[in-house]
């Protein structure tokens, strides 16, 4: 798998983050795209829902939570109904198992080529490398994913995977890999990709996709795309496999409305994705399109573990990407800094949890100890989440687990505990603040009412790496207030 999203563990985020901050192109592309998407997201919700936006999110939250609370029943229903419609349903506990199931299906048909529609869960389980290793030539048909594929790059955003690249890079890749003529025109670039893909759709032995929702009562899947590539990948090849995380289950189409209203608006500020496709069962007698065989691979890969944990709310996520667009840290460090296919705020809490649930024990956080700390806790993610996942709460939860397991810097913990000890002793606490002021007054550069330190000692060193520390040199507030209050009371007494 690509090291960008499946790095060696334990993962160290800091070098990637430092590099990203210095990468001017990344700053420009990711910064402007996320800002625009976030502004448009706010705009379309204001326009279409106004004050009802919050109520809509509450409905979506409760609907998805209800489904998760009844996941066992919904799974049974889905399996029974999908089978009744003629589809084959498989269950995979691990990513490796899911790949093995797919390879078995492919081998049974002697498949040599595959067209794949965008799917996060297939990134998670490493389907593409598994297919390639088995000699099954696989084409990413989502335009963004296709460009990343021919560049040997990896997605850096849940919804807009090539947010870190621009059309100049795309033009160059198309010249290099497809022998196309150089053009930066988005329409022409799209046409080049389209020409390249059309024939491959028809020739492919197998089609693969993810799903946005599973409808338990119909045994059907709902897939939202903007390019129609899913419809081509399911319409052409004789066999289609839908990979889907079990958390995508909802009761049925009756529960779909709030999610469809929220998903595209939250992700790309569209009222709906261009295509909202429903798949139920393989091709029936008399039908002209559709696969002869339809398989659903229901993927656990840690989800059952998450469901049983305190972080079960995370499974409500509908992968809209709004929290990435709103996150100040994501905007600066980009997706690859998170070392996972799930970047940004949701990735920071979901990645260690999925890993923990699969590997068992405390592995998850030990392997991604930086992720919960890489947040200013500004709350923008929670504010934009269409299913109201309190991401900051889970970041704090993980920070506490890190501390408990000794996975945070020891010196920092000791310093914080010393702080608490001092804070319980007001006299000493004042003395400590006084000492800091004295230090600044003796060593700082005096300047008006402040003494500025360019290099602070101990825990302040991280601060003064890029900022000065200005300590006030004048009267302490408490001294001023004591005099002031005495005057005030005298005045009052005189009245």
């Amino acid at each position, binding site marked *: 798998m690509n090291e960008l999203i499946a790095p060696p563990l334990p993962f160290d985020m800091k070098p990637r983050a430092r590099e990203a901050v210095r990468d001017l192109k990344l700053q420009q592309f990711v910064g402007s795209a996320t800002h625009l998407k976030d502004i448009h997201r706010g705009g379309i919700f204001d326009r279409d829902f106004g004050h009802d936006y919050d109520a809509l999110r509450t409905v979506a939250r409760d609907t998805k939570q209800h489904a998760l609370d009844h996941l066992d029943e919904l799974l049974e229903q889905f399996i029974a109904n999908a089978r009744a419609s003629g589809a084959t349903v498989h269950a995979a506990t691990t990513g490796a198992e899911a790949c093995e199931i797919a390879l078995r299906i492919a081998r049974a048909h002697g498949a040599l080529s595959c067209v794949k529609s965008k799917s996060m869960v297939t990134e998670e389980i490493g389907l593409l490398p598994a297919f390639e290793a088995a000699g099954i030539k696989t084409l990413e048909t989502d335009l963004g994913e296709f460009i990343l594929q021919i560049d040997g790059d990896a997605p850096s955003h849940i919804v807009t995977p090539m947010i870190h690249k621009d059309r100049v890079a795309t033009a160059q890749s198309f010249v290099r890999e497809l022998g196309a003529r150089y053009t930066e025109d988005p329409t022409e670039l799209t046409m080049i990709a389209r020409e390249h893909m059309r024939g491959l759709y028809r020739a492919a032995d197998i089609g693969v996709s993810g799903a946005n929702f599973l409808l338990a009562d119909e045994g059907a899947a709902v897939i939202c795309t903007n390019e129609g590539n899913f419809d081509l990948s399911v319409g052409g090849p004789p066999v289609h496999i839908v990979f889907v995380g079990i958390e995508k289950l909802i009761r049925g189409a009756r529960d779909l409305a709030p999610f469809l209203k929220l998903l595209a608006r939250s992700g790309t500020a569209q009222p709906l994705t261009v295509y909202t496709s429903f798949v139920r069962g393989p091709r029936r007698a008399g039908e002209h399109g559709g696969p002869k065989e339809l398989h659903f691979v229901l993927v656990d890969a840690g989800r059952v573990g998450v469901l049983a944990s305190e972080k079960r709310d995370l499974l409500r996520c509908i992968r809209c990407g709004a929290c990435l667009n709103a996150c*100040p840290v994501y905007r600066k460090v980009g997706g690859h800094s998170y070392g996972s296919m799930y970047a940004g705020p949701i990735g920071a809490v979901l990645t260690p949890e999925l890993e923990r649930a699969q590997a068992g024990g405390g592995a998850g956080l030990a392997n991604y100890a930086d992720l919960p700390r890489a947040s*200013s806790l500004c709350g923008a993610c929670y504010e934009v989440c269409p299913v109201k996942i309190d991401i900051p709460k889970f970041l704090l939860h993980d920070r506490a687990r890190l501390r408990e397991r000794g996975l945070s810097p020891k010196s920092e913990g000791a310093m914080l505990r010393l702080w608490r000890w001092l804070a319980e002793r007001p006299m000493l606490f004042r003395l400590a603040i006084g000492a800091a002021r004295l230090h600044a007054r003796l060593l700082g550069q005096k300047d008006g009412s402040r003494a500025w330190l360019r290099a602070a000692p101990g825990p302040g060193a991280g601060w003064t790496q890029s900022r000065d520390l200005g300590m006030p040199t*004048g009267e302490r*507030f408490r001294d001023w207030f004591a005099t002031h209050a005495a005057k005030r009371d005298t005045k009052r007494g005189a009245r």
Partner: protein
Amino acid sequence: MRVALFTTCLAEALAPRALKAAVLVLEHCGVAPEVPLAQTCCGQPLLSNGLPNDGAKLAQRMCEIFAPYDAVVTPSGSCCSVVREKYAGLFAEGSRERANANVLAAKTFEFIEFLETQLKIDPTTLKPKDCSANARCATLTCHDACHLRGLHRHGCTAPFLRSAGCGTVRDLPDMSQCCGFGGMFSTQFPEVSSALGDEKLAHFTSTGAAVLVASDTGCAAHLAGLAHRKGVAIRVISPAEAIAESLGLLAREVTSANASTEAAMHPKNGTEVG
């Protein structure tokens, strides 16, 4: 009504003028705040960095210290949000501690919020009578602390100061994006934190304002520190200081955009008038 000023450790250490201004403005509004001497830190650094049990001890202290008061006012948006949103969850449901935390949460307010929603001050009544003095007043722009989001007070400072006639209040582009402070995040990921701060400073510069009003001491120290390192002309003050200056309760500082960078960056500490 007994009102306590919840000074916060950060403001006592770094922004005494903001506290002074808060006292003077409250008095102008007819409230004489008290300053409980035993208060230290609300526990936010502990709660945000994986030590909820240690934080809970400080939360309990806070509940005891502020028990005698009817209202608790603080110039720090983020410390306010900790008391309001985090304290209760630290204690078991049904416990006495949880009840105390809920009591404190219900009576704790950020400074502008207290003026607006509790004292029901019409900001236009805070307009300075002497308009010639106001003409000298700075061009301001406001950055609200992210933690005001949870209190549904994000974006409320600028309109209030504008109505209160605190100089010319310009809108800060992309105000909703975090300034990058984030408590210990600022030292754990200094490059990311500074990059966000730089973006905020660039937006500030684009407004042409001379003064940035920041509703949290942490944001203020971060942005002022970055600006000082880079030599960017900026004066960062709290909302209370903006009002106190406008009302003439605190001596106005050098704010002219024409003043030398040094003068604009390192103004004289305000002195009380009268």
